[in-house]
């Protein structure tokens, strides 16, 4: 399953809840304000690092760039463009949005 998160980890618990339910074989895609979780040195980094031990974590490039944080992405988080977003949705049997 592809888990899509779009809220900042400081505004809502969407990422925390998502990571508590994501299973091996799935993937996590951070978009919109959730891309802040993909940056180094932030309080959510440990949770993202832990998740990456079992799941690939992606972040949407255009949302990183819009917010000026593209240079500080955590090592191992894969940056995708809109085409990559579509590929991820197509690769997984289901997707779930965590609002």
């Amino acid at each position, binding site marked *: *399953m592809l888990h899509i998160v779009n809220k900042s980890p400081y505004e809502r618990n969407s990422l925390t*809840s998502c990571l508590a*339910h994501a*299973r091996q074989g799935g993937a996590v895609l951070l978009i919109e304000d959730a891309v802040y979780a993909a940056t180094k040195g932030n309080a959510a980094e440990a949770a993202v690092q832990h998740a990456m031990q079992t799941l690939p974590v992606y972040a949407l490039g255009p949302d990183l760039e819009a917010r000026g944080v593209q240079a500080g992405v955590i090592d191992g988080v894969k940056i995708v463009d809109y085409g990559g977003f579509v590929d991820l949705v197509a690769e997984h049997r289901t997707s779930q*949005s*965590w609002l």
Partner: protein
Amino acid sequence: MTQVAEEIEGEAGVQAVVKKFMFVNRKAPYGTIYALEALEVVLISAAFDQDVSLAFLDDGVYQLLKGQQTKALEVKNFSPTYRALEGYDVEKLYVERESLEARGIDESQLLVPVQVVSAAEMADLMEQQDIIIGF
């Protein structure tokens, strides 16, 4: 048979496909429109004879609290609708135990019979679905 009749039958054939839908409720009831909108979509899905289940986790568990009174707010109290879901053959209501415990809510305070499941069991249920729609 006319061509129109054939097309209608063809459409009926498409509707006969039953998928497993899960609606995931993670928001408290009156602060945003999400909970009410979720109920609307649940009833539509049930009308199409789909295999519908509802999940309540995080603040979504507040949707099921007994004793909601919205008169002073002048908004519709939609909480009785959860009790009516059974009439639409929507009987799979799953509530996450960790979310109840974090909010100090006991199952006896909920307004409808539910299955209380752990976060791990909820994750399993999510994996079994064809379609997951989050609110």
